[in-house]
């Protein structure tokens, strides 16, 4: 099956199930509190290898916190984390992290190519500086996210969506097996959203595991096939349709309204049409 054959892009072609039994992320009873406030309570997340997974929940549900615990950026009060069946310290080279755009100072003196090259620093070791090969790889990654012509633009002069694409390119250049993205589509323009989703989809089709914190329930079923619902505690996880059909949304977001359909009801409906609205490679900006 060729990834470029449009016929293979239908639901049937995509139906390659995530590998059972092997987990890209496995947490066991992760618990974390900020002072007296519980941030994560006994979270046992198991994302299968090869999943296109969304991590969803209301504001303050602990989505970013969970991602940071998984990456070892925050210490959990209790519980265990395995990434690709290894401890994080052994798995780092196989994990690509795309932090929330707002966590860095975009006034930093660097251009897009500089930032993408940072993805190769680990491989370069302590003292070696990036050279022609590294810059070529970084340009290639920028090309994949449709930003080749902006390589030398200072990052402060990029739009929010372009900055997010630079961050994604920085993860691409690492060529990891697992991508962890914190709100990659928050506050980005339509063109950037299409470019980012197209890249993530292609990665997933190539066998990579993608796990993204996602906030927009309207696009959830179009972009993702696996879902974890979090609200301090893990309210549900599994293939998106199964979770949407359960009462997990109700438990994560509070009781359903007395009249009318709850705002998450469309998630299950949309699943039927998930291929129609999906941006294709052809829509990528040149």
């Amino acid at each position, binding site marked *: 099956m060729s990834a470029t054959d449009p016929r293979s892009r239908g639901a049937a072609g995509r139906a390659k199930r995530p590998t059972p039994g092997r987990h890209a992320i496995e947490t066991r009873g992760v618990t974390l509190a900020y002072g007296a406030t519980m941030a994560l309570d006994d979270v046992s997340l198991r994302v299968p290898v090869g999943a296109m997974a969304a991590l969803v929940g209301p504001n303050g549900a602990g989505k970013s916190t969970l991602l*940071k615990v998984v*990456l*070892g*950026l925050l210490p959990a009060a209790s519980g265990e984390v395995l990434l690709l069946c290894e401890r994080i*310290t052994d798995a*780092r*080279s196989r*994990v690509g*992290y795309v*932090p929330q755009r707002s*966590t*860095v*100072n975009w006034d*930093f*003196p*660097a*251009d897009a190519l*500089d*930032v993408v090259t*940072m*993805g190769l*620093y*680990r491989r*370069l070791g*302590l*003292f070696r*500086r*990036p050279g022609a090969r590294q810059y070529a790889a970084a340009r290639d990654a920028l090309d994949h996210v449709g930003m080749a012509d902006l390589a030398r633009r*200072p990052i*402060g*002069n990029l739009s929010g969506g372009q900055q997010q694409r630079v961050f994604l390119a*920085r993860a691409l250049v690492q060529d990891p097996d697992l991508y962890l993205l914190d709100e990659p589509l928050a506050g980005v323009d339509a063109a950037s959203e299409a470019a980012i989703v197209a890249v993530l989809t292609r990665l997933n089709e190539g066998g990579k595991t993608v796990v993204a914190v996602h906030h927009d329930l309207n696009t959830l079923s179009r972009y993702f096939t696996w879902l974890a619902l979090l609200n301090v505690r893990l309210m549900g996880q599994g293939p998106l349709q199964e979770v949407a059909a359960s009462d997990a949304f109700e438990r994560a977001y509070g009781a359903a309204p007395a009249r009318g359909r709850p705002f998450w009801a469309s998630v299950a409906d949309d699943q039927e049409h998930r291929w129609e609205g999906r941006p294709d490679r052809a829509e990528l900006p040149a």
Partner: protein
Amino acid sequence: MPSFLLDPIVITVALGAALLGLTAGALGTFAVLRRESLIGDTMSHAALPGVAVGFLLTGERSLPLMLAGAVVTGLAAALFSLYLSGRPRIKRDAAMGTSLGLFFALGVVALSYAQRMPGAAAAGLETFLFGQAAATLRSDLVLLGCVTLVALGAVSLVWKQAKLMTFDPDFAVAAGADRRVIEAFLTAALAVAVVIGLQMVGVVLMSALVVAPAVAARQWTASLGAMFWLAGAIGAASAVTGALISALSPGLATGPLVVLVATAVVCVALVTSPRRLAQVDG
């Protein structure tokens, strides 16, 4: 060439000023980008008790010992402000203000005490407040030169890690960097940048020579490497200019002159910044 430029004292002063301006300006790049300018100010004020104690230990002017004391109390003040801001209901700026005041007060008390010792006047202790370029000895140049080489060399060795940790600490840690080691290194670099100029520029204004060149350099460049060296050059030029004016006008403290020159460069940079013009272009 005016004859005073060949005067050995003037040459010593100019060389010393160039070295400390280069180091302070270049290392200030990371302090400014990490938004630690106020930590620099805290450390420089807090260096005063260390200088006094360094003098009291030997009873004579020993620059290495006085500067070592300055590093110790400067870092102690930085740690104390970190401890305070970790307490509930104390914000970072209040913590630094408290720490700065405490250590500077201790320094003034220790300095007054040390002034009564024989030899205090000869050690030029009071010049550590506002700086006195003319007090630079030829033997100090060796120390300044070594510190400059070691500090700049160390930063260029771990350049990638320092850059990544400054821009995106979360990503750096996720990629396996040790946050505490690199941050300790950068804080130590800032302490060195502050302490190296204490004698010429003084504890009160030294942090301005760390901050101003980086602020000016940022206006003219969008690359970290260029900013680093440009800030070093601006720092060196400001320090040499200020030190020469002061050395030729007896009684004029060096620190304020250096800072006035550096701030003038910042003003020029703000007006002529290509980024500013680019933004007008759209």
